[in-house]
């Protein structure tokens, strides 16, 4: 186990290193003068300019520049946004939790939709109900997420007027920033009409969460269905049936665990796709998350912000994947199967 953890840690360090290398390379790939992009200062002869040359290590070779970059990153100095003039780390701290909140709810929702339907389809393998669910999931999977979001807005927000169209909470409420997760912030705060604020925030959340969750749910359905169908045909399920257990008993005691264990890593991997979808959907719903923020940065060519945003999102994805890897391994009883030699 220690060896495994060390290997994962090693992978983590190496991956982060590669990501910093990629974002560092971005500096030179942006159009225009590299230093001007980074600092926003265009006059070359001022004392300020010389200071910046030294700060970024531009008076030395590129390896030195990369070293300086790593040093700045490590110290939490990710640069200044050229459009707002704020520290990028501070801005990311504001927008990243909003995205994570949306993604986590969407992930949970998609699992809650996908796994039961996947089981239903898998247990009725190749029956009409299975084919129905499968067709619906193919349809859902084929719909682009931005189009689905627009459809949802058109129908539920504009035509029926049931749900708000954009934003995170109505402007009437002023929620003090605490964790960045709005539901937690509302519960923590001491504003007068907490209940109303909470329901308002939830109503704002429904459409974006739904549009992200549906796509992932269809993938979850397909993964689960495949696994259920395979497991229910395996020898040990037959053996359990022959031992005289009823079909429900066989399913709950032997089917469920064996179905979920192999697919958990695949399900977890969907989180990265989901995060990408969340960033697109944010733009449509004007959700103040990192996707929206990055898009704005791209529009106004705020290069330090693009660089910082890419790095932040990558780090979140890497940490999440690695943590889940470790958690799944700890709970899996078959973790040492491949280590034991077989004849």
């Amino acid at each position, binding site marked *: 186990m220690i060896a495994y953890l060390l290997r994962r840690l090693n992978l983590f360090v190496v991956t982060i290193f590669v990501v910093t290398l990629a974002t560092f390379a971005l500096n030179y790939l942006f159009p225009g003068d590299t230093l001007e992009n980074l600092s926003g200062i265009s006059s070359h002869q001022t004392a300020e300019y010389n200071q910046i040359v030294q700060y970024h290590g531009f008076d030395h070779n590129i390896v030195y520049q990369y070293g300086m970059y790593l040093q700045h990153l490590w110290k939490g100095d990710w640069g200044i946004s050229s459009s707002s003039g704020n520290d990028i780390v501070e801005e990311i701290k504001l927008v990243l939790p909003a995205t994570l909140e949306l993604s986590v709810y969407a992930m949970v929702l998609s699992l809650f939709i996908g796994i039961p339907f996947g089981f239903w389809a898998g247990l009725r393998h190749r029956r009409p109900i299975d084919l129905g669910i499968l067709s619906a999931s193919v349809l859902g999977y084929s719909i682009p997420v931005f189009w689905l979001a627009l459809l949802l807005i058109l129908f539920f927000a504009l035509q029926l007027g049931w749900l708000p169209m954009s934003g995170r909470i109505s402007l009437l409420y002023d929620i003090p920033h605490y964790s960045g997760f709005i539901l937690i912030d509302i519960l923590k705060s001491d504003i007068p009409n907490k209940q109303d604020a909470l329901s308002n925030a939830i109503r704002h959340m429904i459409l974006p969460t739904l549009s992200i969750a549906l796509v992932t749910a269809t993938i979850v359905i397909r993964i689960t269905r495949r696994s259920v169908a395979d497991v229910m045909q395996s*020898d*040990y399920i*037959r*053996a*359990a049936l*022959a*031992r*005289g257990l009823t079909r429900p008993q066989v399913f709950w005691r032997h089917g469920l665990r064996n179905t979920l264990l192999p697919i958990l890593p695949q399900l977890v991997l969907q989180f990265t796709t989901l995060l990408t979808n969340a960033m697109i959907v944010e733009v449509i719903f004007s959700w103040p998350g990192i996707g929206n923020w990055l898009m704005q940065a791209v529009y106004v060519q705020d290069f330090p912000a693009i660089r910082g945003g890419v790095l932040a999102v990558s780090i979140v994805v890497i940490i999440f994947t690695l943590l889940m890897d470790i958690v799944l391994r700890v709970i899996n009883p078959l973790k040492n*199967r491949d280590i*034991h030699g077989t004849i």
Partner: protein
Amino acid sequence: MFLLDVKNLTLEIETTNGWVKALDKVNISLKRGEISALVGESGSGKSLIVRTIVGALPERWKITADRMTWKGQDLLSMSEKARRKLTRDEMSVFFQNAPDAFDPTATLGEQLRESVPDKMLDKGFFWQRKQQRDALIIKYLHKVGIKNHRQCMQAYPHQVADDVCQKVMLASALVSKPELLIADDPTMGMEITNKVQILRLLTRLNQTQNLSILFISHDLLAIGNMATDMTVLYCGQTVESGKMAQLRNKPLHPYTQALLNSAPSFRKDLPPKAPLSSLSGTIPTLQHLPIGCRLGPRCPRAQKECVKTPSPKKLQNRSYSCHFPLNRSIE
């Protein structure tokens, strides 16, 4: 009175080329206290018969039979619940390929406890039941030759050797004190000392507890010493069945002859360095089954009539399905 009586069992399974008769009019019967052998090549449908008898087939497959009874009760028309109860209380199965027949994510102990039926426990409180179960299990683990029962019960199937898995499987089959044990190749791949031990245990249980055994194997040597009856299966068709001794001495069906010849220890006249006999060709796949007698294309005695399926013929207490049987004087 037959314990198990199966007549004209046909099993149709769905393949990519449509429905195929994997079992074609199979007949098996077994009296109480008998050891009956079911032999045939791999892929001849032996394991399918086992799964049909215990009802562990996919629900979509079509089973038809003139008769499929257990102690006179019809198995096919029985409700799912009654059938489960019956398989749980009165039959046990030893599955081929024991390591795969255990749930990989549950310990062997958990799965053994599942095999102990509730009615074998005396009416204690529910917290005493686990102990009672364990006591029974440990007794049977010792019987099949596992000494280190604690370690074995805590292990996951992948943590023990294959032959230990087989022994645990046997213990779990025997612990419910069944009337019939269906043993699908219980000694596959075992070393000879273990094998003898298992076969001896089965013979002893048959003699002392009147356990009926349907023994499925291609190990003719092991079966030859144990079984009283034998049924020979080829490609899902029963070709011959009858008393072991008769079949061994005077096989009627060419396939039985070929099968016996393929086991060198059954032939006393085999000179040293002589080529071993075998049928030409291989067993056909399910998608390309020949019509009529399925042995036809490989049979040394095949003639034009063999494209029609031979109906089973009775001769004293044995039956065979062949148009041109061996060892029979023309009446």
